[in-house]
């Protein structure tokens, strides 16, 4: 099975890091993973996207994701942006950082309050809640291809010490509550 995932957020929110960790987790599970950043004139705060694929078989293609099975939105305001949802598969999953899920016909919508989880775990840099590990946890759960222990392992591999532990707690908290 091949799952195609689009991550949507703002420059500085760590969507590329999240998509790499998702690919890493898939490989850790004995599967295949791919993370493709969309590079442009990146600026902190500007809308950005990344593509990721997880699969049971080798991933050969390198084009970006146009028909995602899952869209993860790191910044609530971008949920309504046409570029966020374009091409999403019927019955696909829209996972939004927020307190309530939006309502999009034909799409399974879910919310995870990644911002609150990040703040609770002290993941705030220069006034920004760093939501990427919480969103990673939620997307991992939604993918059905990444287990809890693997999630914990790839997050801990990325950051050491106390910072690593805070990120692990955020990822696991989101993993627990994420639907749908």
């Amino acid at each position, binding site marked *: 099975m091949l799952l195609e995932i689009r991550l949507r957020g703002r420059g500085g929110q760590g969507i590329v890091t999240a998509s*790499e960790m998702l690919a890493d987790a898939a490989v850790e599970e004995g599967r*295949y993973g*791919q*993370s493709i950043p*969309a590079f*442009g004139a990146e600026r902190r705060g500007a809308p950005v996207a990344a593509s990721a694929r997880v699969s049971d078989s080798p991933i050969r*293609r390198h084009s970006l994701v*146009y028909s995602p099975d899952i869209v993860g939105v790191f910044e609530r305001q971008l949920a309504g942006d046409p*570029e966020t949802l374009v091409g999403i598969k019927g019955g696909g999953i829209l996972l939004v950082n927020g307190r309530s899920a939006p309502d999009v016909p034909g799409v399974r919508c879910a919310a995870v309050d990644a911002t609150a989880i990040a703040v609770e775990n002290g993941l705030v840099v220069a006034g920004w809640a760093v939501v990427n590990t919480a969103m990673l946890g939620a997307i991992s759960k939604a993918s059905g291809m990444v287990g809890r222990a693997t999630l914990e392992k790839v997050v801990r591999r990325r950051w050491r010490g106390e910072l690593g532990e805070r990120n692990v707690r955020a990822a696991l908290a989101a993993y627990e509550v994420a639907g749908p």
Partner: protein
Amino acid sequence: MIATGNHAVAYGVRSARAEVVAAYPITPQTQIVEKLSEFMASGEMRGRYIRVESEHSALSACYGAAACGARAFTATSSQGLLYMNEMVFWTGLGRIPMVMAVVNRTLAPPWSIWNEHTDQLAQRDAGWISMICESVQEAYDTSIMAFRVAEDAEVMQPVMFGLDAFSLSHTAERLDLMPQEDADAFLPRLDPSMLPVLMDTRSPATYGNLTGPDAMMEVRSAIRDALERSKRVIEEAAGAFGRASGRRQAGLVEDYRCGDAEVVIVVAGASSGDAKDAADALRDQGTRAGVLRMKAVRPFPSEAIVRAVGGAKAVAVVDRDYSFGMGGILATEAASVVGGRAARYVAGLGGRDIRPEDFMGMAADALRAAESGDPAQGHEVWWGLRRSPSAPGGQGGA
């Protein structure tokens, strides 16, 4: 583990135990030499990292190091490759067995950082063996194999290999590293006495001095012969690396389902995987499609192309490059061996994505042209060309 294409190249150069790295940073290549400088600084690689003021100097330093018997590596991209152009020819025509990674990036103007193959293909007449990779894993594998090919006594020519900007250089994929003892067994230490030119400060001599018309053709024919012999050496290296790694390797080409194909897509680089997915999808719809991926562009795999497209009704050559006033470079060269059957498609210039659906469309178009009896010669399509450059439907985020 996972790694980006850039880091995979750095891991490969570490596995190959390169002794001298000289480089100048340029997007999107910089991560390769950054990582190598970290390996050198930490002692994971033993050797010398030479910081230089330009790409011309980077390749000059590698030239000198390799001519003195060291295993030398550099990496560059687009404008940087152009800036080292004079030394590219010095290194190739001077028979210096070193290795260079080229992150294939569009040439300016207008300024661009995205992928295109014209930068590397524009250097094809310099006496280098020239290859283009499809995946992160292949970028790592090729980083090791390239040294073995370059240093083979039958070859002794430099090797450059390309990887597509961003869609390989910055894309992270699964990567399996080769145990160091396996890499060492595959790639023994360079024996300097085998070099066509060995510079020795204890025995000073000049090389490349004024050569008259009475000798130059013979000098050139030695390089011609080396590139011809490299075809066999490349296949042997791919076979040996495949056995050592357990990962099947492409030599000059990769033949994907061409055997019974009615239409063959000829392509190089990172989007070859999209072409394979397209071939599978076409077969599901009842069209027998295959992909001939060109791993090597120099030496040009003429025989392999002829073999692969043998029974096909249509051939669609897809170029992510262009020679103005003539056509796609690979299509022009393929046409020289398969004749008028090669329908030419120019796609993905400046980094525009080529999706599996695009390859399906090109294959169908080539079949249509062949079946309608249109002479395919001169059938050149700029795939997805828009009437207005700002029209929507392009690559997301780019």
